[in-house]
């Protein structure tokens, strides 16, 4: 399985999911209502995003951003699989593949919304010619 090359790719694809969702008239209010600021800490390679749902903005880790309520740490490979609906968060946590600091509840409550974003993400990968990242 493949991951991302660098933080720019993490931002382009994972950040891109949220940028798209935050522009969606149906999803945006629900995402904002969570009040959650989430830090996605990527490993292999080291990279990060700060996803500010109430503020409606995604920051690259190297660019700063507001303080997060929860940090999810995982390899970029796992992140790529997660957003295609291929990773069960609770199993991944038990396996140590995903580490969460802060409130897990809000993350899990995001799950029904995340599910709507899986096809959007896959579509974007394909549109970008990144079939190497698509898990079939």
């Amino acid at each position, binding site marked *: 399985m493949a991951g991302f090359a660098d933080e720019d790719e993490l931002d382009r694809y994972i950040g891109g999911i949220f940028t798209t969702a935050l522009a969606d008239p149906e999803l945006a209010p629900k995402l904002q209502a969570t009040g959650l600021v989430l830090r996605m800490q990527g490993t292999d390679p080291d990279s990060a995003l700060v996803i500010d749902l109430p503020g409606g903005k995604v920051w690259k880790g190297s660019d700063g951003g507001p303080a997060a309520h929860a940090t999810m740490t995982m390899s970029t490979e796992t992140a790529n699989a997660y957003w295609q609906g291929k990773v069960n968060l*609770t*199993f991944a946590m*038990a396996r140590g593949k995903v580490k969460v600091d802060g409130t*897990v509840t809000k993350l*899990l409550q995001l*799950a*029904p919304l995340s599910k709507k974003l899986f096809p959007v993400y896959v579509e974007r990968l394909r549109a970008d010619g990144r079939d190497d990242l698509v898990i079939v």
Partner: protein
Amino acid sequence: MRTHDLLDISTQAFWAQPFDAREPAFAQLRRERPLSWHRPAETDMLPDADDPGFWALVTHADITAVSRDAATFGSGQQYGGVMMENGPEDVLEAAHSILAMDAPRHTLLRKLISTTFTPRRVALIEDQIAAQARAIVDDLAEDAAAGREVELVERVSARLPMWTVSEMIGIGEADRERVARAANAMVGWNDPEFVGDGDALSVLLDGLMTLHTTCFGLLEERRERPANDLVTALVQAEVDGARLTEEEIAAFFVLLCVAGNDTTRQTTSHAVLALHRHPDQAAALRADFEGMIDPAVEEFVRWASPVLTFRRTARRDTEIRGQQIAAGEKVVMFYGSGNRDESVFPDAHRFDIARSPNPHLGFGGGGPHFCLGAHVARMQLRAITGELLRRFDVVDAGEPEYLAGNFINGIKRLPVRLAPRA
């Protein structure tokens, strides 16, 4: 929009009351509105402003019919599971296993699991259950002789199921308490004692992490050193060329730990309390234990209704009692209510160990999700109540502390004083 029934059975406050305090509401529904539409269960688990509510099934007939028609009434994760409250799919997949699953996947997995749950394997453990029940009751002798109060749940009710399920699955001595505590917490998500300063989902998740990590550790051990236990059998099991993934085994492990620990435990406490409160029934059982214990166990389970609810979701448009049920609508089966249905159980509020027939819904209403452990549960109840009755009189029982919530009819603590029988 359809109006919600004015008789509100959806609040956490309603489910924080003891069974007997809730029963009049169900009796009224059975009598006046055997099918009623309610607002969604109050929850902070996965609040959903768009959830329209659920149909309440309160009669024995409806619960039985819906349980047996899994083609129409589904249990799958995609419907949000089988609890009154919706749960996140990841949690359902990780914790509910075949409980939140429909055919054909359910049929295959249940078949695979059943091969490890055979009458032969269960028979193997019968003598051990009897010996363990004896040991548990032996441990009470000193306190009984001294007239000291003992806490029944911790000292008796919780111990036999924990031992049995651990022994069957293959959980080592060192992990048992921890696993039982985690399993117990997983049915306590609506009880302030378990929630504390946290929230419902965190309670579930903490329990889940403990159970998963224990299971993954066990799987690694058994792959290297197979043993005569369920984990080994599950690792090796194969049906139609299919094997279980580690994740599937872990989810089933969680289901077994919860179903194995938190049901018989409650029935044991309810049975001891009922026998204490109905001395004529205790006397009748003592007088002819071998003759009476089989119907008595059924009555213990009916009386306790350890599992209070399961939910199904209509997979297509259908009808119950002439009422249109639209695809996607939830129906909640209230087993405790079905078990007090006067049209099936004459004098339903009487605890009667000789009750016959006793088609209670304590193991479910039949169909593909009927309790896989019913046989083991009966065996445990027979052993533990038998030992207790033989050795001790319950001379005094304090007020039970009930578990709050809509899923398990739990007794958290029950102080009793025992006296040795001559």
